[in-house]
C-alpha cells in the first residue's frame, strides 16, 4: 500500500496545482465552471489526504517496518495508543498532518462560501491551493512519508519516550490545526485585497475559522505546557524555549487580529491593521512549523534535523514579499473613512491592545532569534534566557491584563465620564480590597509585579461578573424573566460578547497561576539515601524506600524498567505519599550489550504531583544507577548469548538489587502555589471560546432559510 500512499501525494500535488490554476483562470475571466472545478479539486485533495493518512496510520498500527517512517518512529512494543501518535512525531508525518488539516479546512470554508463572496473566494481558493501544493511538494520531492526500506528491520526504533504522554498525543494536532486554521482568513484577506473588496465581508466569512484556529492553537499551547510540567522532569511549564515561543507568537498576533476585526466589522476601521495582522499570524504559523523541524535553534522540542529548511525559508520569504507588496498596493482601498471619536472608546482600546500584543510578539521574536542575529552580526552565538524574557514580558503582560479589565466596560465610539466612574467603582474597590488583603495577610509584597498582577486579576474578574450582572439585570427589566432565565437568555443572545468576557476571566485566572507559581515557588534539589529527610517549601519530606519494577509500567508508556522512590511529605497534620520514578527504555545500540541495553537507553521522568487548588507538591527522581554498572557488565559477559528467559531473569535480579541496596538518589521537589489555576484558567478560556464560536440562533435560522430558498429556486427553475 506504500505505493498507493505515494500516489495519493503525487495526485494530491497535481490536484492542488490544478485547483490553483483553475481558480485563477476562473477569477480572471469570470468563468464560473472553472471556479467550481477548482473548488471541487480542493475537495478531491481532501479525499486523497484522508486516504494517505489512513494508509500511513494503518502501517503504524500493524508495525509494518517496510515503511521507513514506521521503522524509525515506532516499534512492536510501542503501546497502540502511541503508535497512533507516532505519525506526527516524525518530520514527513507532520507534513502529511499539515496537508490533511489544510485540505479539510479549505474544503469546509469553500463549501460554506460556495454561494457567497463570488469575487473573493476564487482567489482565496488559489491561495489555499498554493499553500497545500507547497506542503505536498515537500513530501513528493524531499520527505515522502511512504518511503520504504529494501531490507525492513525485525524491530523498529520506537517512539521517542519523551513523547509518550497523553497530552503529547493531542498537542501537535492541536497546534497544527491552529496553524492551518489561520491560513483560511489569510487566504480570504489576500483574495479581498486582490479584488479590492476590503470591507468586512471576508471577515464575516472567516471569523469563525480564525476563532477556531485561535482556540486550537491556545489549547495546544496549554497541553504543551502541561506536558512540560508533568513529563519533562524540570518542574516548569514554560521555559521560553524557541519552539514554545514559536507557537505563542502566532497566538498573540492572532489574539490581536480577533479583537481588531471587531473594529472593522463595527466601525469600518483598522483595515490595514487587520490585513497586516492576519498576514503576520500566518507567516508566524509557518515559522512555527519550520522551527520545530529545522533544528536551526537549540530546542528540546526540535525532534531531528531537517532537510527542508531552505524550502521553508524560501516559501516564507515569498509569502512575506508577496503579501507586503499587495498591502502596499492597496493602501488607498484600506484607508478608513471613519475616525476615532474618542480615546475613551472600545475601538481606541482595541488599538492599544493590538500594540501591546504585537509588542509582546516582537520581544519574543527578538529573544527567540537572538542566537541567529548575534551570530550573523558578531560571529558568535549568544542567547538570552528566561530572566531576559520575564523582565521584558512582565510589564507588557500587566498592561494586557489591565486592558482585559477596561475593554469590556467601554462602549463603542465614546464613553462618558460618569458612565466610566459608575462602571469602575465596584471593580476598583474590589481590586483595592484585594491589595490591602494581600499586603496584610500574605507575603505577596515580596514580588511587586505579582502583587500588581493579583490586583489586576481581581479587577478583571470583578468587571466580568459586574458586566454579567448588569446585562442580566437589563434583560430582566425588559423581559420580566427570572434571574436564571435572564442570564441564559443574555448569554444565548450575545454569545460573542459573553463568550469573550469569559475568555478574559480565564486569561486572568491563568495569569493568577503564572504570577503565583513563578514568584513564590519553593524548589529543592537534594541527593539523599533511604531514611533521610529534607525540607521543601512547607513540607518535611522523607525518602522512605526505593522502588524498582520490571514490566509493570502503569502509565502505559511501554517502558520495561522503572526505578523510583516512595516519599512521605508532611505539612502539619497532612501527610502525602509521592511515588516519582524514572522509566528506562531499551537502547538499539548493540555496543551496550544484551543486558546493558535495557539500562543504557533513553530515560524519562515520571513525576508525581499532588495537584491542589492552593498548591501543588511536585516530585521527580533521578536514580543513580552507576552502582549497577559492574553487575550489568558482568551480566553482559556471562549471559549475553543466553536465551530470552534467562536474560529476563538476570535483568530482574539486577532490578531487585537496586530495590534492596539502593544508592543515594537525586530528587527535585517543588512546592508551587496556585499553579493549578493555570490549567483551570485554560479550561475557562476554552469554554468561553466555545460559547463565542457556537452558532447563534439567528445564524442557524438564516442558514436553514437560505437552504430552503435555494432549493425552492432550483425546483422552480426546473418547472
Amino acid at each position, binding site marked *: *500500500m*506504500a*505505493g*498507493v500512499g*505515494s*500516489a*495519493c501525494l503525487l*495526485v494530491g500535488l*497535481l*490536484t492542488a496545482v*490544478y485547483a490553483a490554476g*483553475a481558480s485563477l483562470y476562473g477569477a480572471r475571466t469570470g468563468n*464560473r*465552471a*472553472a471556479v*467550481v*472545478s477548482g473548488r*471541487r*479539486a480542493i475537495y*478531491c485533495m481532501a479525499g*486523497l489526504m484522508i486516504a494517505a493518512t489512513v494508509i500511513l496510520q494503518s502501517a503504524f498500527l500493524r508495525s509494518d517496518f517496510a515503511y521507513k517512517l514506521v521503522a524509525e518512529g515506532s516499534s512492536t512494543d510501542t503501546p497502540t495508543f502511541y503508535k497512533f501518535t507516532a505519525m506526527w512525531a516524525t518530520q514527513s508525518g507532520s507534513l502529511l498532518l499539515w496537508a490533511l488539516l489544510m485540505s479539510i479546512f479549505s474544503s469546509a470554508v469553500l463549501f460554506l462560501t460556495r*454561494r*457567497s463572496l*463570488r469575487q473573493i473566494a476564487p482567489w482565496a481558493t488559489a491561495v489555499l491551493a498554493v499553500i497545500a501544493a507547497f506542503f505536498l511538494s515537500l513530501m513528493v520531492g524531499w520527505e515522502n512519508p511512504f518511503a520504504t526500506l529494501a531490507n525492513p528491520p525485525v524491530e523498529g526504533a520506537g517512539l521517542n519516550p519523551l513523547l509518550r504522554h497523553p497530552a503529547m498525543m493531542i498537542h501537535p494536532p492541536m497546534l497544527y490545526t491552529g496553524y492551518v486554521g489561520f491560513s483560511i482568513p489569510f487566504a480570504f484577506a489576500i483574495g479581498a485585497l486582490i479584488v479590492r473588496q476590503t470591507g*468586512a*465581508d471576508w471577515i*464575516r*466569512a472567516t471569523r469563525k475559522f480564525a476563532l477556531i484556529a485561535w482556540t486550537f492553537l491556545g489549547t495546544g499551547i496549554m497541553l504543551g505546557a502541561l506536558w512540560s510540567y508533568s513529563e519533562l522532569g524540570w518542574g516548569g511549564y514554560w521555559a521560553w524555549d524557541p519552539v514554545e515561543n514559536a507557537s505563542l507568537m502566532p497566538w498573540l498576533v492572532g489574539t490581536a487580529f480577533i479583537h481588531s476585526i471587531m473594529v472593522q*466589522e*463595527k466601525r469600518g476601521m483598522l483595515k490595514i491593521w487587520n490585513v497586516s495582522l492576519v498576514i503576520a499570524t500566518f507567516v508566524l504559523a509557518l515559522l512555527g512549523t519550520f522551527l520545530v523541524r529545522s533544528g536551526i535553534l537549540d530546542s528540546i522540542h526540535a525532534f531531528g534535523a531537517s532537510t527542508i529548511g531552505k524550502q521553508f525559508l524560501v516559501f516564507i520569504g515569498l509569502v512575506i514579499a508577496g503579501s507586503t507588496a499587495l498591502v502596499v498596493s492597496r493602501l488607498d482601498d484600506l484607508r478608513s473613512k471613519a475616525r476615532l471619536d474618542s480615546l475613551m472608546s472600545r475601538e481606541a482600546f482595541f488599538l492599544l491592545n493590538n500594540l501591546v500584543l504585537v509588542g509582546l510578539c516582537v520581544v519574543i521574536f527578538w529573544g527567540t532569534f537572538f542566537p541567529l542575529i548575534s551570530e550573523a552580526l558578531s560571529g558568535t552565538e549568544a542567547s538570552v534566557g528566561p530572566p531576559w524574557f520575564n523582565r521584558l514580558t512582565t510589564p507588557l503582560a500587566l498592561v494586557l491584563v489591565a486592558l482585559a479589565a477596561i475593554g469590556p*466596560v*467601554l*462602549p*463603542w*465610539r*465614546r464613553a*462618558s465620564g460618569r*458612565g466610566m466612574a*459608575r*462602571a469602575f467603582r465596584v471593580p476598583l474597590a474590589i481590586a483595592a480590597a484585594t491589595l490591602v488583603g494581600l499586603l496584610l495577610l500574605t507575603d505577596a509584597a515580596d514580588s511587586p509585579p505579582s502583587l500588581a498582577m493579583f490586583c489586576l486579576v481581581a479587577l478583571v474578574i470583578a468587571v466580568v461578573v459586574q*458586566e454579567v450582572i*448588569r*446585562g442580566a439585570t*437589563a*434583560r430582566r*427589566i*425588559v423581559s420580566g424573566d427570572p434571574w436564571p432565565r435572564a442570564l441564559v437568555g443574555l448569554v444565548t*443572545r*450575545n454569545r*460573542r*460578547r459573553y463568550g469573550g468576557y469569559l475568555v478574559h476571566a480565564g486569561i486572568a485566572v491563568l495569569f493568577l497561576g503564572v504570577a503565583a507559581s513563578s514568584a513564590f515557588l519553593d524548589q529543592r534539589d537534594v541527593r539523599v539515601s533511604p531514611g533521610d529527610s529534607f525540607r521543601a517549601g512547607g513540607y518535611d519530606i522523607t525518602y522512605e524506600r526505593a522502588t524498582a519494577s520490571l514490566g509493570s509500567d502503569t502509565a502505559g508508556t511501554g517502558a520495561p524498567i522503572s526505578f523510583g522512590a516512595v516519599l512521605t511529605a508532611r505539612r502539619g497534620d497532612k501527610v502525602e505519599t509521592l511515588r516519582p520514578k524514572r522509566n528506562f527504555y531499551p537502547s538499539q545500540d548493540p555496543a551496550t550489550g544484551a543486558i546493558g541495553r535495557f539500562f543504557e537507553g533513553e530515560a524519562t521522568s515520571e513525576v508525581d504531583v499532588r495537584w491542589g487548588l492552593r498548591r501543588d507538591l511536585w516530585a521527580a527522581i533521578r536514580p543513580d544507577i552507576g552502582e549497577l554498572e559492574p553487575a550489568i557488565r558482568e551480566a553482559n559477559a556471562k549471559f549475553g548469548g543466553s536465551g530470552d528467559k534467562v536474560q529476563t531473569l538476570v535483568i530482574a535480579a539486577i532490578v531487585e538489587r537496586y530495590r534492596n541496596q539502593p544508592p543515594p538518589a537525586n530528587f527535585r521537589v517543588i512546592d508551587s502555589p496556585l499553579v493549578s489555576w493555570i490549567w483551570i484558567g485554560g479550561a475557562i478560556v476554552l469554554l468561553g471560546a466555545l460559547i463565542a464560536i457556537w452558532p447563534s440562533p*439567528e*445564524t442557524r435560522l*438564516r442558514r436553514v432559510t*437560505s437552504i430552503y*430558498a*435555494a432549493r425552492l*429556486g*432550483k425546483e422552480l*427553475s426546473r418547472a
Partner: protein
Amino acid sequence: MEYGLAAILLAALVAMVVARPLVLGTGEDEAGDSVAREELEAAKEAKYREIRDARLDFEMGKLSQEDHRSVDRELRGEAIEILKRLDGLDGKSPETV
C-alpha cells in the same frame, strides 16, 4: 507498478470529479440572486447584531441616551439600506413593501 497504477486510477477519478462542471455546467448562473441574497442576509444579521449591542450598552448604562440615539439612528439607517437592497432583489419597490 503499484505506484504507477494507483496514480493513474486516482488521477482519472479526480479528473472525472473536477471536469464535471466544465462539461455539464455548474447550474449556478440562475443562482446569482441567491448569492447576493446570502451576502445581504449576512450583512443584515451583522447590522442587527450591532443594533442589539448598542441597545444592550445603553440598557447597561454604558451609553448615554443622547449617544445611543445618535448611534442607533445611524445603524438603523444602514440596516434600512440593506433591507432596501434585499427587497430590490425581489423586485419590490418601497411603495409595494
